[in-house]
């Protein structure tokens, strides 16, 4: 499937390959067939109009499974078995809170015999602070990994993360969260934490190209549409042309991104700046120093409510970006809409119930995060001519999301209570293909989840600065944050990357293997986890089970037990052997995976 997506993206013919690829997929099912009849994959594109045909009624229990299973039947793929309670518990904890369950959580959940205990757990976790923090961190990372954050803005990143966390905790709707950010104005002051931090997103750009960049990021993050591909030339396989991009950018014509707030020659905050005049110009292809002024228009070609169109004129483009596009026909102070009115108009159009892309982008992203694979891949690359896996399922789930006013926690419930979410990983699934939601796709934990997981297992890791300047290796900013910040920087990745493209690194491996503070916690001494387990369980097998349950959320397999017993025997020193085992588990692939 990866291959097919790749080919589509580069506009080559693909029909033949769809069939080949179908052959590949079916070849993974129980191996009895050599020449299965080719089937057509449930892959297709949806036009803006198609989306609106799907019901906006709330998703019913079992509905997602019926829809997915119906597609799986057509391609003759059997879904994987459901997770057992141990597997489900670890998955739900890590996915919702970025943390492993504690020993007590594990014991209680396994002892609970009520049939609704999985649904109850999901409800419980959605109400925790950890849920809001974990996803607040997620959204902060979505924005900051592709932004240019200068040292002035860097100081308010934690404020923004706290703001996002508070929205999620209160279960504000995605439309509301979006509106707050896109219509923001004013300042974020360093000495006024938790005030106006929603303006952060719009401050993540500055300088000459802030206009086109923020337009591109707004479209990518909130609509899932990478309209910037049309910035320079018409893309042959996309409906949106160059002019569409520049009309979209015109919503930000008078936006100028972040500027410092200075008091007595000191930086005391950051502010969002607007110009009272000026229009965005689409550069002339033959003479990029001049261009035609643009009026704001949405992806559907419609102007925002209350638009005050200005006659398009040709004029010079100021490379410094100040008053880019000159004064336009409207002249200084008048003509055209104000910066705030443009952004409000844009937000109204983005969050309009008849714009399906807003809901689809969010649902596609969340589904991708929870299932390990999304309908559209990468998760921020949707569009009427882009192929999606099982697009009709996405259309129905995002219909429901629109219908319930973009209720985020409800979406988590809808997805996580489905059997589709609760399936096991299974053997023989190649890592590069779309698994069609028949089984869970493995995804690496992000930096935040890895750090928390490690701390849950080992107990709080001493994060103090190591050595004279702090152990190096985490980039210029991480150096001052102690091990915790270094670790998170080292293990973080762009959340919009495909699961299979999120790779580990040598620096990560070195840190887990050799970091003295982490190793200190692995040792079977003092109050460390291992020391406690070894003194509570005198039988090796019991101790091994406890270590496994604690680190991987499961019991060891028989073969693993055999290997482990052999290891303990050959080392001859119980503590030392168990330290090796804990080290091996912490450094293993499985420990770092959401499975």
């Amino acid at each position, binding site marked *: 499937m*990866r*291959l097919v*997506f*790749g080919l*589509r*993206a*580069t506009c080559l013919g693909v029909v033949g390959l769809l069939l080949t690829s179908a052959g590949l997929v079916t070849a993974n099912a129980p191996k009895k067939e050599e020449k299965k009849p080719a089937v057509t994959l449930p892959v297709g594109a949806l036009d803006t109009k198609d989306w609106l045909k799907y019901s906006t009624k709330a998703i019913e229990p079992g509905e997602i499974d019926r829809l997915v299973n119906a597609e799986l039947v057509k391609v003759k793929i059997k879904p994987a078995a459901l997770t057992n309670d141990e597997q489900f518990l670890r998955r739900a904890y890590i996915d919702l809170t970025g943390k492993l369950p504690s020993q007590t959580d594990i014991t209680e959940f396994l002892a609970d015999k009520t049939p609704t205990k999985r649904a109850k757990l999901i409800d419980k976790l959605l109400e925790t602070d950890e849920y809001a923090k974990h996803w607040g961190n997620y959204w902060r990372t979505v924005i900051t*990994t*592709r932004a*240019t954050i*200068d*040292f002035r803005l860097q100081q308010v990143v934690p404020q923004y993360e706290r703001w996002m966390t508070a929205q999620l905790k209160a279960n504000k709707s995605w439309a509301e969260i979006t509106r707050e950010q896109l219509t923001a104005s004013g300042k974020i002051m360093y000495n006024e934490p938790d005030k106006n931090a929603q303006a952060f997103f719009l401050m993540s750009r*500055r*300088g000459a*190209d802030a206009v086109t*960049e923020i337009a*591109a*990021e707004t479209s990518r993050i909130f609509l899932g549409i*990478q309209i910037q*591909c049309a910035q320079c030339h018409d893309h042959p396989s996309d409906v949106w042309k160059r002019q569409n991009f520049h009309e979209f950018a015109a919503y930000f014509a008078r936006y100028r991104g972040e500027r410092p707030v200075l008091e007595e020659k000191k930086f005391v905050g950051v502010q969002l700046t607007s110009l009272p005049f000026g229009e965005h110009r689409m550069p002339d292809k033959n003479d990029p120093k001049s261009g035609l002024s643009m009026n704001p228009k949405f992806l559907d070609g419609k102007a925002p409510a209350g638009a005050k169109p200005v006659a398009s004129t040709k004029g010079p483009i100021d490379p410094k970006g100040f008053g880019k596009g000159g004064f336009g026909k409207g002249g200084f102070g008048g003509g055209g809409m104000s910066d705030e009115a443009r952004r409000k108009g844009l937000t109204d159009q983005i969050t309009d119930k008849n714009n399906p892309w807003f809901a689809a982008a969010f649902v596609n992203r969340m589904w991708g995060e929870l299932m390990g694979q999304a309908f559209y891949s*990468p998760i921020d*690359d949707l569009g009427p001519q882009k192929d999606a896996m099982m697009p009709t399922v996405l259309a129905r789930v995002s219909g429901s999301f629109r219908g319930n006013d973009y209720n985020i926690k409800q979406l988590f419930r809808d997805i996580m209570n489905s059997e589709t979410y609760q399936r096991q*990983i*299974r*053997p*023989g*699934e190649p890592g*590069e293909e779309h698994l069609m939601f028949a*089984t869970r796709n*493995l995804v690496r934990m992000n930096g935040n989840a890895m750090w928390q997981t490690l701390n849950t297992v080992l107990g709080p890791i001493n994060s103090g600065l190591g*050595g*004279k*300047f702090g*152990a*190096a*290796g*985490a*980039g*210029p900013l991480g150096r001052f944050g102690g091990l915790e910040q270094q670790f998170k920087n080292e293990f973080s990745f*762009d959340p919009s990357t495909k699961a299979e493209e999120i*790779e580990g690194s*040598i*620096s990560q*491996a070195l*840190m887990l*293997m*050799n*970091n003295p503070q982490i190793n200190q916690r692995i040792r079977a001494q003092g109050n460390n986890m291992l020391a406690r387990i070894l003194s509570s369980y005198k039988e090796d097998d019991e101790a091994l089970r406890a270590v496994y349950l604690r680190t991987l959320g499961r019991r060891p397999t028989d*073969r693993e037990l055999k*290997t482990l017993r052999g*290891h303990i025997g050959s080392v001859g020193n119980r503590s*030392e052997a168990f*330290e090796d085992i804990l*080290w*091996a*588990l912490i450094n*293993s*692939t*499985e420990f770092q995976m959401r*499975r």
Partner: protein
Amino acid sequence: MSTQLHMQVQVNDDGVFSRRSFLRTVAAGAAGLGLMPTLAAHAQELRRRQMACILLFMNGGPSQFETFDPKPGHTNGGPTQSIQTAVNSIRIADSWPTVAREMGSIALVRSMNNREGEHQRATYLMKTGYLPVGGVRFPSIGSLVASEIGPRDFDLPQFVQIGGGGLGGAINNGFLPMQYAPFRVGNPNQMPANTTLPGDTSRTRFDRRLGLMQDLERDFAESGGEARVTDHRAHVNGAANMVRSPRLQAFDLSRETAATRDRYGRGAGGFGGGGAFGQGCLLARRLVETGVTFVEVGMGGWDTHQNNFDSCRTLSAQSDAGFGNLVKDLRERNMLERTLVIWMGEFGRTPRINANNGRDHYPRAFSIAMAGAGIRGGRVLGSTSDGGNDITNRPVGVSDLFCTICHALGIDPRKENQTPIGRPIRIVDGGNAVRELF
């Protein structure tokens, strides 16, 4: 050692592609895979594989007036004087005696320009060749070079980034595979973080633990995690190979004599005002000697809005010792012909001296220096007007600079890499190599 390394290079190029980039290339319809490389191509390939590059990056934007384009006698020049270099016709600022002695190997470009006057964006541009555009994470030049000419099966990272004081944290392998990400060394005076085994772990125990881990991973691999285990193992093995590698000692500056270390300059620690830049240059030399393809050494403190002249004098002393001695040692060890050294910052500084006796950002005309890898030393390319306000001859843009780097290292600047959404991105967009430099 390096000869052995080169002989290990497989002539058949298929190992160059990671599984992913291979798929990308196939997806892009690249036709080159089936071609049998000719003998000439082998020779070319082997030559490329020997090349290395060291980027000395002056974070903050160094003043051209106080470095390589002094204007003594003009109001804009301030109190800075110039000195004679080893090349009669070339004069540079007077705090650069070591570089002056090495001028026969160094070419200056006094007509560098870009259009970004903001640190972050200008740094991004100077390190990737592109401006940040929403949606695309462009790779650093170090990652590009490592992916193009780095040796395979090498037991140290191919791109090492030393020191800081800059804003470069977000500039990394971009859309290229993680194996080309910069390996960061914060303080060259210490071994890189986590490369030495913890106190309670002997080599034997380390190997035992790794063996146990691999045994224990079998069940997870067989139950559906195989592809992830394979990926993970590559990084674990990479890290383990590094820990065990005899080449790791290249990171250990205590193996150099005190005299050598003194010669490169021992700045006071810290990360703001240059810090351990000289020692970083020495480490860069050692790493390139041992086979690392790309080393970046950062130096902070060049944002001299205030007190420009005193600051530049201190900074120059450190930068001069590091840069000058690096070129000298590479030359004396016959490594300069295969090692490109670039000295630059994100932009220059204003001709006008401001009220705080400082200079502000000036991207319109500034200087960079290059040496090695076929660059003809003892030359000055381009010039600025008497007051330094304008380029008067042979402007060089960022794309031209990147094409020049590619030319020196034997890289095709027009080669396209694919982003995750299948968008083709050239190594360099536009520009031309500055042929006069070779």
